[in-house]
């Protein structure tokens, strides 16, 4: 908002208020969604089984988190719990678009990413509970799901802290000439971190095979995107001459289509991309967030665009599945998640000795006392 006259003392305001975007004069929105793809699954190169599996994967992420939320509210485990609900199309579409040995790294809203990249619901739930059977052996918790064997380099807790790590992973891939692409996901809040700019500069300069993908869910914690960041996020790429795009993240086909194109371009040319994927976070930033910063109407507006409902309807409308088959998948997922909870509850906590495990690679490090 350009001010063309000097404000009086009372008029001074630093951070803008509101959420910045108004559509049809009524609903206040934090982000504006680009159009989704019009392509059907066949023309995207996806089989019916793929679409069913996508639905299955997305529903698993959703249900896993709903039950995790319930268990958290029952006081079953502590720590943070940042829920991914609403953003499942991004994790699922991306993982389908990338090769299995392409590398993925993300921030702390990482449950969906872990589940779709090989962290089993049991290992995931056990990690939330801090059990030794968890994917990170109970040492990481909610923010640090990881499955490095399957090229998921984990969730990371410092806002923006993992951006250079993703770049380094891409650097090593280029060094080794192994054709792997790295997808480094970050939130809109991390765009304001200085390290992003150091890294975009080097990445463009060195031609790192990396996709910097901002999951813009409208809020950095409780601060709407236009209250914390000037201009449009994807436009940041212009300053570095980096290829960029803005994508609808509420539609799994769109994410799949764009990520596939971009990944192939990166693989071909070994130059990075900076993309903004617009989405919406249905829950608070974390479990103790009363969500006073957004309107109920806005949330409802986005819930109408729920990526899971969308793919479910696609399956029904295109006669890929009947309602009872959908119900069956949902029941199966529910059972899987409940089993995961039982598994987590019955699993052991790490041994006391595990405190000193994996600080260093060697077993005989002389710890200071």
């Amino acid at each position, binding site marked *: 908002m350009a001010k063309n006259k000097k404000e009086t003392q009372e008029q001074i305001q630093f951070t803008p208020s509101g959420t910045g975007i108004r559509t049809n004069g009524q609903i206040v929105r934090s982000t504006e969604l680009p159009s989704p793809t019009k392509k059907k699954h066949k023309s995207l190169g996806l089989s019916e089984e793929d679409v069913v599996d996508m639905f299955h994967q997305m529903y698993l992420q959703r249900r896993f988190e709903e039950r995790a939320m319930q268990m958290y509210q029952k006081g079953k485990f502590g720590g943070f719990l940042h829920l991914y609900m609403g953003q499942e199309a991004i994790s699922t579409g991306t993982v389908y678009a990338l090769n299995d040995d392409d590398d993925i790294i993300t921030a702390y809203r990482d449950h969906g990413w872990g589940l779709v990249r090989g962290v089993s619901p049991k290992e995931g739930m056990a990690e939330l509970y801090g059990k030794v059977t968890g994917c990170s052996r109970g040492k990481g918790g909610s923010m640090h799901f990881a499955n*490095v064997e399957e090229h998921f380099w*984990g969730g*990371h807790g*410092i806002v923006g802290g993992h951006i*250079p*790590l993703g770049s380094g992973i891409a650097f090593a891939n280029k060094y080794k000439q192994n054709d792997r692409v790295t997808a480094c996901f970050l939130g809109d809040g991390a765009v304001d971190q200085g390290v992003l700019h*150091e*890294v975009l500069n080097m990445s463009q300069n060195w031609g790192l095979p990396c996709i910097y993908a901002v999951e813009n869910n409208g809020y950095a914690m409780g601060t709407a995107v236009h209250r914390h960041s000037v201009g449009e996020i994807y436009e940041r790429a212009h300053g570095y001459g980096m290829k960029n795009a803005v994508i609808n993240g509420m539609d799994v086909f769109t994410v799949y289509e764009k990520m596939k194109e971009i990944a192939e371009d990166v693989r071909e040319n070994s130059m990075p991309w900076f993309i903004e994927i617009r989405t919406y976070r249905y829950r608070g930033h974390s479990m103790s967030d009363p969500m006073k910063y957004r309107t109920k109407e806005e949330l409802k507006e986005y819930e109408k665009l729920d990526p899971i409902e969308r793919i479910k309807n696609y399956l029904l409308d295109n006669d890929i599945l009947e309602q009872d088959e959908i119900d069956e998948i949902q029941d199966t997922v529910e059972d899987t998640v409940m089993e995961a909870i039982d598994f987590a509850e019955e699993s052991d906590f790490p041994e006391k000795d595990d405190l000193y495990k*994996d*600080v260093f690679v060697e077993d005989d490090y002389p710890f200071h006392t």
Partner: protein
Amino acid sequence: MAELQFREAIRAAIDEEMAQDEGIFVMGEEVAEYDGAYKVTEGLLDKYGPKRMIDTPISELGFAGIGIGAAMNGLRPIVEFMTFNFAVLAADQIINHASKVRYMTGGQVEVPIVFRGPNASAGQLSATHSVAYDAMYAHFPGLKVIYTSEPEDAKGLLKSAIRDDNPVLFMESEQMYGLKGEVSEEEDFTIPIGKGKVKREGSDVTVVAHGKMYHVAKQAAQQLAKEDVEVEIIDPRTVKPLDIEMIVKSIKKTNRCVIVDESHPFGGLAGEVGYLIQREAFDYLDAPVQRVTLPDTSAPFAKNLFDEWLPSANEVIDAVNTVTYRK
């Protein structure tokens, strides 16, 4: 034995390791085309090419993090900081990521990276360019910290650091790069991390000194020898893990100890070693442990103030006189 400058010893270590492992590369400001800000990496660009000798922008946080990511993904980076005073900008990456990512993922990754460069003061460079960071990094679990005082130690320990599968901070000094010393020519000479060295034997007092301060302690010892005071100098060489056994063994012999440390007094190596000594050698002390450190002030510019600020041989002699009840 060959006589090498400190910088040559470091270069030899990097060169030998790079020659035998394709995954090792050097990254930092002015390391390649400029031949190194202090000529440590001179000639390595010609030898290994621009893929393995990488000039970075002045973006410590960014390139430190890229190094860590590359290490996670199977390479063995040597990240050079023009000085550890600039590495403060990269502290998030070193402290929050390099040291913790293995632990947080339950052992799913290794971070075999070396961060190296000069530490502490180098003359009248003023407050922001004169800080010793070894004790600060040693505070964090998951990091190893080395700060050597002589070319041979530097070579042997840097080779071990490059081979280590954990993040290691390897610290040097601008003022020591030209220092000459005998370096073993033994094939594949290495020194294990975490082992100190008795640099001078003596029976009257143990002086613990590492990095640049070793030379201050050595001067003091030569002076004191003229007065028949025999100083035993222990150079820990590695700050973390610390070879406290060697220090304690020496104190059991001499019963007195002075620690010389180019850190500020609060929370430096001197304080930590002092604590360990009272725990491990309480009944062997004939006097309270003394330390010679920087004052609790930042580095001044003015020459006279700077000389006052930096620990000197005379201060070490005074401390020795105190613990030996000579004065």
